[in-house]
């Protein structure tokens, strides 16, 4: 009797295992939902839509996009974290939603436990910029001015706790000068304030102001992301100016924890193909966006490193940390 039960259990387990394997092998059997954690029409949304079309040939299924904007990207990410880990719900994710915001305030997900990084698909490009008619032609001139006039220069960011705020504050701290932070709700308002002369400097994504940069209305003084910008040739990066850090933030694709490895691999391959797709690169290029693939494991490790690094720095930069 006992052997019979055992045999039955074994058989069941085998069937279940086979079925599970079969399920995973023909993944995806239906369209996959992609939750974009910023609003329709923005940079992240645009890039996600372009890539999702190019991911279809590998995936053999459509990606259905839903926008869940709000709360600095954490709202959309929390929707992904709450979803079933079956490979049919994934989302876009910004670096701070994983590595910075959970240290500042309570979020309803554990950034490294409830979510898996499928892969990173695009680094955001940032720079420190001034108005085209401002007296500062180079980064050195700006630094010299700030040092001569302590507390007078203001910089706008796209919000407290964003890399735009934190990196700029950290630069001030490293160079030993004081500039006043003015957080705006998004890059649009920060840019308007710069163009109107209400703040002296902004740290913003360069793609969103590409047109103003080309027209000479905005001048780039320092590239804060890792690599030189096509948009601002000859402008030094932070590394070239001797800083040991830079403004690293990627747009990535996340899945809920528990998503089968087969599904993760398939999704990773699909987005890898999408980031190399000629049509995507051409369309993104027109908008000064530059997709670049990074494997999920590598990005997950980078996030852990960034999380520890910023965690240690937040109190020093005057950001209130969650108790």
């Amino acid at each position, binding site marked *: 009797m006992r052997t019979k039960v055992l045999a039955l259990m074994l058989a069941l387990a085998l069937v279940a295992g086979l079925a599970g394997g079969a399920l995973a092998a023909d993944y995806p059997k239906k369209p996959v939902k992609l939750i974009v954690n910023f*609003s329709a029409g923005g940079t992240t949304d645009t890039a996600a839509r372009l890539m999702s079309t190019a991911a279809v040939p590998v995936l053999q299924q459509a990606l259905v996009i839903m926008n869940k904007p709000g709360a600095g990207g954490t709202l959309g990410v929390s929707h992904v974290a709450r979803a079933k880990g079956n490979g049919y719900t994934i989302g876009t994710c910004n670096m701070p939603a994983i590595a910075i915001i959970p240290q500042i305030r309570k979020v309803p997900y554990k950034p490294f436990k409830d979510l898996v990084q499928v892969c990173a698909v695009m680094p955001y490009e940032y720079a420190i910029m001034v108005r085209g008619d401002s007296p500062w032609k180079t980064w050195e001139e700006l630094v010299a001015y700030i040092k001569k006039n302590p507390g007078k220069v*203001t910089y706008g960011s796209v919000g*407290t706790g964003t890399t735009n705020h934190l990196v700029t504050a950290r630069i001030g701290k490293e160079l030993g000068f004081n500039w006043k932070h003015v957080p705006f709700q998004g890059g649009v308002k920060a840019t308007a304030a710069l163009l109107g*002369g209400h703040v002296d400097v902004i740290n913003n994504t360069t793609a*969103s102001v590409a*047109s103003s940069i080309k027209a000479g209305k905005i001048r780039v003084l320092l590239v804060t992301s890792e690599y030189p910008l096509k948009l601002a040739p000859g402008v030094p990066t932070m590394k070239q100016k001797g800083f040991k850090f830079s403004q690293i933030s990627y747009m990535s694709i996340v899945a809920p924890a528990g998503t089968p490895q087969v599904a993760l691999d398939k999704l990773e391959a699909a987005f890898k193909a999408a980031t190399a797709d000629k049509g995507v690169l051409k369309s993104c290029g027109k908008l000064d966006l530059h997709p670049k693939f990074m494997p999920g494991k590598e990005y997950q490790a980078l996030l852990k490193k960034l999380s520890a690094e910023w965690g240690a720095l937040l109190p020093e930069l005057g950001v209130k940390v969650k108790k």
Partner: protein
Amino acid sequence: MLETLGAAASQALTIANFFGAALGIFLGSLLGAIPGLNGTMAIALLIPVTYTWSPLFAIAMLIGCWKGSVYGGSISAILLNAPGTPEAAATALDGYPLTRQGKAGKALKMALYASVIAAIFSDSLLMVAAPPIAALALMFGPAELAMLILFALVVVAGTGAKSQIKGLISTAMGVLLATVGLDPITTQQRFTFGSIDLDAGIGLLAMLIGLLVMSEVLIQMEEGWKEAHTEVVAQSKEPGANRVSWKELKGSLSIIFRSSLLGSFCGALPGVGSITAAFMGYDQARRLSKHPERFGKGEIKGVAAPEAANNAVCGAGLIPLVTLGIPGALSAAVIMGAFMIHGLAPGPMLMMEHPETIYGLFMLLILSDFFMLIIPLPLMKLGQWVVSVPRAYLFPVILVLCVIGAYGTHQNLFDVKVMVFFGVLGYFLKKWGLSPAALLIAFILGPMAEVYLRQALKISGGDPAIFVTKPLALLFLVLTVAMIVWTGWRHHRGKGSLDHH
């Protein structure tokens, strides 16, 4: 120049683009007119579809949709007292009383004429004066905006309430509710009770649908319980009740013009928006009228003023977008996405790199204004027919639409809960003579005032002198004080004259 215009015309003036603009206007006014559904939803639903189309076709359709929905909201506001869009909340204040008097046709037509005149005005501004207006808009930084919003708040506070004190209570409630969510400066949670959904704040559209539409259904269900099978309103037998006479239109022209100017100003300033414009438009008409007591009781000018103001926002909202790459209004931000996906990065280079596209867009804009005069007409007729359906059949449908509308914008069930909560709250507000409309406008202006005030103080290092040393900020501060004094004085004088009787 002529060559560019020729190229623009050949690009823009195609049958397909006409169709796109017309379809956009139709969809926009239809979704705007259905209580519960709205134009923002229409635009959000259309955006992904437009990515595969030609840029001008897509953009013409989206802008048509935006314009159509801003007008469409007035149809349900006037006929049912259930504004289909937030912009139309002010239109209901006098539009619905007109319907109760059997003059729905007159109100609907006045709203349409005012909308079209304002839209043409605003689009013309975009075409001939975009660069100087954009420069003017940029002069408004946090300090100036803080004082401007404070002024707007003082002007519109209490609109639609039974008494001044009830108006102030409604306003205070709106400002309080708006503090829910992340602190805009420190990004710490405020009144969120651990809910991530509340981190993003109370959703404006969900709140609006509950507060203005669902509450109205509850009110009318109760009022009309016994006569639930009868028609809501009968057409007035008075001659001219169904049309706008030339005299009435002429009498409203100066108000429409002032509202257009105000609306264009609000549109060009990034982030001030059409709801503010509509309420400011309504209040300028009321305050500057020789008969302010007629407002709220079916004054036709009270329909023309907010409709002109909110429609003027559209064209002017594109000014900062095409000149600076900064969208002036929420819908303009979505339309910016349509520009971007087609490789047209909005900003100062747009005019230099793609002048034919921009001029083509201008042509389609003006054209769509004329379409707007024709396309909503059948909707108007349909709307008038719909309200003649007995309420017992009409209201359950509207309630379902409320749920769909609240869910549809972000596909979030939480928004439906928010909608129901505000539906019930709105019911009690109306019962107590408080004003849901005043709550709504305070909900929108309150957080703006907070953010700009705190940003300005960040810039000045905490020194409030920034509000008097900046000329434009000082101007609006003085206007605010003058407005308070004037209102108090009028109130006092009103009381005094009563004592004499």
